[in-house]
């Protein structure tokens, strides 16, 4: 129907615009103010609607769907509590640059501002947690706004948008127009191509580097699979060592020889030391987040910095850079690879030999080491077994937030982009389970595992019911230590081991809970039982909740304590109780 124009109701327009923008699946929850749209959904079968159990779940499911496919995730919620419940997911998508279109119902236009039943100022509430939002008061504006919503969500730096549609506008009749190939919008024009002179300058600087590093982020994933190919090509051409943020895992394969592991607060020793000591840093689609930089005034003091980002406001926000390049990672990498090939001043392999020697010394420090245990499952061991037993399949990993998330990032080796869904910027406990649901809806035949913590998973566990309804065989693998592990770790570091409210005294029986939902419940308590149980989890064609009882007091290392620099990491073999208690000085305690 693209480009055609015909009379229809606002509710029909919504469904038509979704179809015209290539939407196949949406996640939502009905309510009074969106009933006309639900009525239209009922009368068609092109778009599949997934009924969640809470609107936050719809938001995270759409995020998982979007992150694993590169498409826009679509959410449909009602007014008032429907809209407020989705706010967490919107902010999560904003911080991790995930394209979402959230359509919300609103009370009829004449009632707006009267404190009507289930009324809230949705555009007011969601203004700071969206890339843009609209309240559509006239049905004739609706088609244009819906198409704009899709354009804004997925172009430039992707992000969430909200279209708030009063109920009378859903009933009103107007003229529908399909998406137009040329945009009428003048104000929003993201720049994709990087400035060629700056790229040339960057390539020159890179060719002269003796201690270079590539520091990549979620921007490479967002740019599409071609950007990951180009990144791999660049690494191959330059032989530079490469590290990545939490969000960027998978853009470069973990099995690649130049891979140093994740960097940042719980990154590897080699990655952080190389960041600190490098002479040229190439930041590609990452944003110098505080979990990455550690102490800012001691951050990589001797390097020239190149920063590629599609969002001009990311440049010089936290760290001053020498060569900013504003553009899409894929486009800039393409130019970079081309110019590198053409340049006569290539790095000789020997030039980097000393740097690689140093990196190998840091690697030998084996910063992810932990003390194995014959009687108790170490959480790191559980991650290693999950990885070994699933790496040869088409596997997608989501996580909640906390220690388990860091262990998953440290021990699961991602070979491809879009296989890793985690809440990085906002750190939303409860993200992983609904995100896994979204991933599974997009990839029905893939193995989708949510690496969860016992505390996080209970925040959105109601979505197991959704998984059962849609026969989405997601696997919820809980590293159960009965604690909010990361909270406890910080209490040990910062608050004299006073474990204030970080222990869950009443834990549900996760196996029985799984059965109550109509899923399969599994449990492993000893290292020897683990492989069989994991294999059973994989082979069951149903949603599974796996209660993996792990060492209760294990902590996540290595770690850059608050207020410290990259070269002041706390390593696992040095993390005695005393070292942990004294790792952070008074000044550092005020930080997050």
């Amino acid at each position, binding site marked *: 129907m693209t480009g055609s124009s015909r009379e229809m109701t606002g509710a029909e327009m919504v469904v038509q615009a979704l179809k015209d923008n290539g939407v196949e699946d949406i996640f939502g929850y009905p309510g009074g103010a969106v009933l006309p749209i639900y009525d239209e959904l009922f009368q068609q079968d092109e778009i599949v609607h997934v009924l969640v159990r809470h609107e936050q779940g719809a938001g995270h499911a759409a995020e998982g769907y979007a992150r694993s496919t590169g498409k826009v995730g679509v959410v449909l919620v009602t007014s008032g509590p429907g809209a407020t419940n989705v706010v967490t997911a919107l902010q999560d998508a904003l911080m991790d640059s995930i394209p979402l279109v959230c359509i919300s119902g609103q009370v009829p236009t004449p009632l707006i501002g009267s404190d009507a039943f289930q009324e809230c100022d949705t*555009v007011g509430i969601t203004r700071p947690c969206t890339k843009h939002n609209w309240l559509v008061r006239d049905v004739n504006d609706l088609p244009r706004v819906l198409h704009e919503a899709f354009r*804004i969500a997925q172009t430039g730096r992707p992000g969430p948008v909200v279209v708030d549609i009063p109920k009378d506008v859903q009933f009103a009749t107007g003229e529908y127009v399909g998406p137009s190939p040329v945009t009428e919008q003048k104000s929003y024009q993201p720049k994709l191509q990087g400035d060629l002179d700056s790229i040339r300058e960057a390539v020159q600087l890179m060719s002269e580097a003796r201690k270079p590093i590539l520091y990549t982020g979620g921007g490479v994933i967002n740019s599409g699979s071609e950007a990951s190919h180009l990144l791999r090509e660049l690494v191959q051409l330059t032989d530079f060592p490469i590290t990545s943020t939490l969000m960027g895992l998978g853009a470069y394969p973990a099995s690649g020889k130049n891979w140093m592991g994740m960097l940042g607060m719980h990154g590897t020793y080699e990655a952080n030391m190389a960041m600190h000591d490098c002479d040229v840093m190439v930041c590609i689609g990452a944003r110098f987040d505080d979990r990455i930089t*550690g102490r800012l005034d001691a951050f990589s003091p001797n390097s020239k910095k190149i920063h590629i980002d599609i969002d001009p406001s990311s440049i010089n926000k936290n760290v001053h850079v020498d060569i900013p390049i504003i553009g899409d990672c894929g486009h800039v990498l393409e130019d970079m690879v081309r110019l590198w090939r053409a340049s006569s001043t290539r790095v000789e392999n020997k030039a980097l030999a000393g740097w690689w020697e140093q990196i190998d010394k840091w690697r030998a420090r084996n910063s992810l080491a932990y003390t194995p245990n014959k009687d108790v499952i170490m959480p790191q061991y559980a991650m290693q077994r999950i990885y070994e037993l699933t790496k040869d399949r088409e596997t997608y990993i989501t996580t909640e937030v906390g220690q388990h998330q860091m262990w998953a990032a440290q021990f699961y080796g991602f070979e491809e982009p879009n296989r890793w869904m985690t809440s990085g910027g906002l750190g939303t406990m409860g993200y992983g389970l609904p995100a896994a649901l979204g991933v599974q809806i997009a990839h029905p035949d893939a193995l989708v595992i949510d690496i969860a913590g016992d505390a996080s998973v209970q925040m959105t566990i109601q979505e197991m019911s959704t998984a059962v309804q849609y026969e989405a065989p997601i696997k919820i693998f809980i590293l159960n230590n009965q604690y909010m592990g990361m909270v406890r770790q910080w209490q040990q570091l910062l608050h004299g081991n006073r474990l204030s409210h970080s222990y869950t005294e009443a834990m549900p029986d996760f196996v029985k809970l799984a059965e109550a939902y109509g899923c399969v419940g599994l449990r492993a308590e000893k290292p020897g039982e683990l492989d069989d149980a994991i294999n059973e989890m994989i082979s069951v064609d149903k949603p599974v909740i796996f209660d993996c009882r792990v060492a209760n007091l294990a902590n996540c290392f290595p770690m850059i304590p608050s207020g410290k620099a990259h070269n002041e990491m706390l390593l696992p073999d040095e993390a005695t109780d005393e070292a942990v208690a004294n790792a952070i000085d008074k000044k550092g305690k005020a*930080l997050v």
Partner: protein
Amino acid sequence: MNAQHKPTGSAYFIAKETEQLETRTLSVLVDNEPGVLARVIGLFSGRGYNIESLTVSETEHEAHLSRITIVTNGTAHVLEQIKHQLERIVPVHRVVDLSIRAREKGHEKPLERELALLKVKGEGDHRVEALRLADAFRAQVIDANTEHFIFEITGRVSKIEQFISIMRPLGLIEVCRTGVAALNRGPDGM
């Protein structure tokens, strides 16, 4: 205006801002649509930027464009962020730092004017003195009876400030100010 100046830096390591604060005047061209002013103001409060003065009105009716003039202060680094963050707002067309532009053209600062209305109540000598000073400041009397005057004064912010402080002991009752309107000198537009 409302927000305290907050150091930016990382929350992970809060560095003290030791740099000098600068005052700048920004011109922001936006689509005149519902909520656009809330987006701009929300950005300032949400990110802890300062607003010293804000003036807004539709300036191109046919294109539905409004021009927002914001006087803000911050370190050079914060001011750069403010400009980029404003440019991220979807209905924002252009952001011009008039102060920088003026300097590039060899001027000290852009042309800035503000209008204020002052109500002054008094009798006898105070009344005579108020009128005499208003004349010296080229303020207009736009309303009066035997007990009060309302003065209209236009000029640079410093002139308005001075006039207000002079009127205070002479029976100043209330003041209303428009905030700064600003353009750069010369024939070129923003």
